[in-house]
């Protein structure tokens, strides 16, 4: 249990957190501005990964693929908003959950229909493979460092977008009073489409970046979606700042729990039992964290609607 291992694991936690933030920020924006629970957000993650894998395979350039992935996710997001989501804003949450769950099934089977059931190949470009030696002798994969960098840049860009631009002003206004900004003459339908596409693009970016590290396959978005929901519930639904803190918290707690809980249990249990117990408890850890936070802060850490 050396210091270098701890540093490496902290970096891993932050990296997981930044990728979760890309998912959670879109999810929380859509909920905050439109009051919509979007289960299909994981599908945009998958669309981004598949489009990136397909275009990277045909052009040979990861960057072009990445661009295509983000664009595809944004376009699919806008299209879904225009065709389906638009009809759900005034429906109760249960209808929204039902309809967006149907979208998950349609996207999953549609993807399988187009690309087949085998996972696709997508890897980081050669100039991002390998590892760097950090001060203190920790070796860390270059690609993961880049992910942290991208996550941080996106967070700053989102902050600037929301606090400094006209679009951001409208998003903030939409969060606090939906009807009033419509009455003030803002084209609310277009605002909704733009926010939805933006959220989808962020999910697509996360899917493409993480897909290169993991596997690009049907259903890849759903496990991340569950984590993203945990993040926004912890952070306070509708709050971008909450999503950022929640994502980093979940990322770090999950990673450190997986490593150190089994070691912790070994102090007073036989090794084989300790490993099993530790792993089982680590799997529950973020949900326990969520329960504890909600017990003290029922609206999450940074609630947008006080």
């Amino acid at each position: 249990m050396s210091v270098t291992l701890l540093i490496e694991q902290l970096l891993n936690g932050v990296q997981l957190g930044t990728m979760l933030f890309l998912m959670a920020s879109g999810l929380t924006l859509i909920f905050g501005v439109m009051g919509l629970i979007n289960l299909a957000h994981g599908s945009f993650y998958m669309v981004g990964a598949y489009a990136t894998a397909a275009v990277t395979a045909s052009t040979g350039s990861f960057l072009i693929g990445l661009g295509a992935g983000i664009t595809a996710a944004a376009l699919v997001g806008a299209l879904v908003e225009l065709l389906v989501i638009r009809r759900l804003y005034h429906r109760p949450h249960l209808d929204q959950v039902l309809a967006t769950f149907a979208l998950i099934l349609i996207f999953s089977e549609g993807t399988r229909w187009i690309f087949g059931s085998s996972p696709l190949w997508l890897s980081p470009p050669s100039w991002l493979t390998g590892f760097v030696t950090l001060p203190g002798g920790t070796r860390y994969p270059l690609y993961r460092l880049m992910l942290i960098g991208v996550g941080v840049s996106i967070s700053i860009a989102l902050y600037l977008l929301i606090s400094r631009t006209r679009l951001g002003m409208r998003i903030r206004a939409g969060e606090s009073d939906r009807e009033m900004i419509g009455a003030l003459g803002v084209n609310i339908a277009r605002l909704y489409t733009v926010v939805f596409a933006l959220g989808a693009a962020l999910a697509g970016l996360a899917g493409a970046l993480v897909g290169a590290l993991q596997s690009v396959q049907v259903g890849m978005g759903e496990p991340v979606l569950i984590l993203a929901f945990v993040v926004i519930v912890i952070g306070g639904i509708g709050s971008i700042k909450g999503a950022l803190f929640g994502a980093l918290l979940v990322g770090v707690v999950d990673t450190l729990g997986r490593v150190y809980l089994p070691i912790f249990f070994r102090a007073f249990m036989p090794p084989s039992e300790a490993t099993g117990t530790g792993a089982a408890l680590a799997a529950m850890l973020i949900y326990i964290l969520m329960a504890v936070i909600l017990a003290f802060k029922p609206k999450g850490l940074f609630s947008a609607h006080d």
Partner: protein
Amino acid sequence: MKNMTRLGLGLLLSSSVAMAQAENVKIGMITTLSGGGSHLGVDVRDGFMLAMEQSGQDEVEVLIQDDANRPDLARSLANEFMQRDDVDILTGIIWSNLAMAVVPSVTRQGTFYLSPNAGPSDLAGRMCHENYFNVAYQNDNLHGAMGAYMREEGYERPIIMAPNYPAGTDALAGFKHLYEGDVVDELYTQMGQTDYAAEIAQIRASDADSLFFFLPGGMGISFMKQWESSGVDIPIFGAAFSFDEILIKAVGSAAIGARNTSLWAYDLDNETNHRFVDSFREAYGRTPTLYAAQGFDTANLILSALEVAHPDDQDAFREALRAADFDSVRGEFRFGPNHHPIQDIYVREVVEGDDGQPTNRLLGIAIEDIQDVYFEQCQM
């Protein structure tokens, strides 16, 4: 001309005699054709149907349904098959948890079940049944074989890793049973986990000389890709479930050099296998996986038994299945007393193929005539 007609008639007659047992036989196949990991079900189905086509058999009807990897759906499909369609034989299930949900009630109701993949320990041991046959493997086989192989190859400090669910803990137990030595550490991951940075850091920090892991499906792809960029440099070993022809293409160069145990390899040298691999490639345009081979063998076993008896004559049909009188793509094939295979397990290495894509190459036999350890608990 007249002679020709007579010859034709004679052929027709003799073939109809041979196939008389197969009249009105219905086989229900429940397998995973959609959702994550569906390439396993697709390959079992394609291998199975290839054997059916090659037999020229048109008296046997095969009904296929997708269980979407859901135990509840698999259960209701099995009931539908048995009650509405009145099938004689069920087959097709990929996952052990689905098999546990379906197989006991199927065999109890007097329908035959032949497993083309899943081999949970309970069905080999205390819950075995005379109408249940496993044509693939008992779940421990491949892991145990790798344990034996690594011991023989002189690896002394392996670290082992699997997801924290029944098949995962079974896999590590199976490995340790035949490795017969101490392992450096056991890591349990979460089911469906996609990020392995934490585990890789732990492996790096240990002083292991080798890694054995069981991460089926997409989990294996994620792990291998992250492993490649981690800079950890110890050899890796696993069971074929993480290294089938489809998965290693998705993993890419990261899979090169990994050794894995399998009950079958596409470059296994026997006549039946050459014909199978060639015709599969021709029919579907891809190299078959072990799942396709298992589906192919399952169909041929059924066909061989149908030549002897109709499934309605349960005792005779069961005896015919038990005899396993068919040409397996694995070479030799026979059943143990609990209707699970006793077979050789092979070692393959992932190498760069002629087209630059990774592919498996047969290295040799890991362990001969392996039999599961549960057969003693089985009372039929």
